């Protein structure tokens, strides 16, 4: 029975991935991508990785899906115009028109098939055993938290998490460079629709509370900084879409402080620990619980602000056409 469910789920994920890439219209692609992300999240629940499932559903399907939907505003009108275009109207748009020549396609298919066989064999023959389960179980009492995944993320391999916050910040900076910084001095126009306004006002505290719950619950169960950060980032995105861009209200130095707070405090803590004779991010076991909680909270606020800023900046790219004309 369980093999049947797993098999159906695996076939569903493969089918959705194929359909997503072969869909004719871009809208279909994006919505099938949502479905693919949710199928993958289900697969992770079947594999017992609830943290990963929350992260996948919230970040990869949710946040990236919202970004893709937003990008459709740019791309899809031209796509439908091309469909109506009488010159290309005979053959539908997609990868069927102007097919590449036969030989490269054959080579590509052959190469992909070979690659599939190699990777299947590599996965099938991966030696059993190994893994770090025993090691992380042995050191779990010293980590200051009860949930092993949180212990790995914020204590045993805190270095990874720290660099990851840096990667998000780098992504934000790169988007600033590409799109031009437009976060500041936005006009404050609340949503005209009364229902939308009320729902945003209702969901803001609920999302905040739920994020805080996930953050604190990460100590003993699935949850933690990233999941909380996405929920808090969702508040920022909702407020932005509802015509209340949060970053235009706060002064510039405050925004910069919030964005760099997680990375900076993490590093500061690491240096302080080094100054007291430990290694970087080697928390003393007596204080590790409270240190992890503080670091997690600051990191979550930083990531949430960065996600909101990424969305706001990408969302505002379409507007004010003067800037694009002046740069060309």
């Amino acid at each position, binding site marked *: 029975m369980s093999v049947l469910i797993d098999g159906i789920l695996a076939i569903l994920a493969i089918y959705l991935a194929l359909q997503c890439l072969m869909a004719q219209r871009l809208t279909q692609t994006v919505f099938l991508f949502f479905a693919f992300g949710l199928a993958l999240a289900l697969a992770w629940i079947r594999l017992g990785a609830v943290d990963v499932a929350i992260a996948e559903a919230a970040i990869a399907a949710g946040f990236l899906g919202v970004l893709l939907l937003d990008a459709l505003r740019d791309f899809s009108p031209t796509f439908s115009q091309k469909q109506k275009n009488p010159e290309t109207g005979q053959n539908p748009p997609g990868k069927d028109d102007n097919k590449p020549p036969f030989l490269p396609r054959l080579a590509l298919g052959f190469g992909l098939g070979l690659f599939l066989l190699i990777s299947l064999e590599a996965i099938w023959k991966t030696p059993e055993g190994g893994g770090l389960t025993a090691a992380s179980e042995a050191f779990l009492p010293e980590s200051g938290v009860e949930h092993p995944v949180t212990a790995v993320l914020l204590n045993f391999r805190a270095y990874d998490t720290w660099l990851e916050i840096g990667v998000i910040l780098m992504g934000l900076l790169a988007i600033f460079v590409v799109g031009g910084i437009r976060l500041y001095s936005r006009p404050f126009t609340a949503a005209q*629709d009364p*229902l*939308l306004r009320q*729902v945003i006002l*209702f*969901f803001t505290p*609920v999302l905040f509370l739920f994020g805080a719950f996930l953050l604190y619950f990460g100590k003993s169960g699935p949850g933690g900084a990233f999941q909380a950060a996405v929920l808090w980032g969702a508040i920022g995105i909702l407020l932005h879409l509802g015509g209340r861009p949060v970053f235009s209200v706060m002064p510039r130095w405050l925004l910069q402080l919030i964005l760099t707070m997680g990375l900076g405090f993490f590093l500061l803590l690491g240096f302080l620990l080094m100054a007291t004779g430990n290694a970087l991010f080697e928390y003393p076991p007596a204080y590790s619980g409270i240190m992890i909680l503080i670091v997690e909270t600051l990191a979550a606020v930083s990531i949430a602000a960065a996600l909101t800023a990424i969305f706001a900046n990408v969302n505002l790219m379409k507007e004010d056409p003067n800037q694009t004309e002046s740069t060309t």
Partner: protein
Amino acid sequence: MTIKEVITVILLLVGCFFFLAGTLGVLRFPDIFSRLHALTKADNLGLGFIAAGMALHIASPLAALKIFFIWFFTLLASSTSCYLIARFQKEQDQSGNRKEGG
């Protein structure tokens, strides 16, 4: 099999039926408004039945409260997004008609 399990199974089956009906509606209905209707109404009812079945199955008041909140928030979010999509479509239709008329 106790009477509680029977009721749970019946609730879950009814929920699955409504989900199936809603999905069928999304796939088969002709225009966006009836599709939205099928998606939000039928699926929320199905989700409600499934939530009730699960709450009965777990049989702890705190978990039942959490499941109720999940259902409640889904209801709120889906009805709002349904309303927004419908309003957007209506505005599009109206502006399209005006263009064709004028």
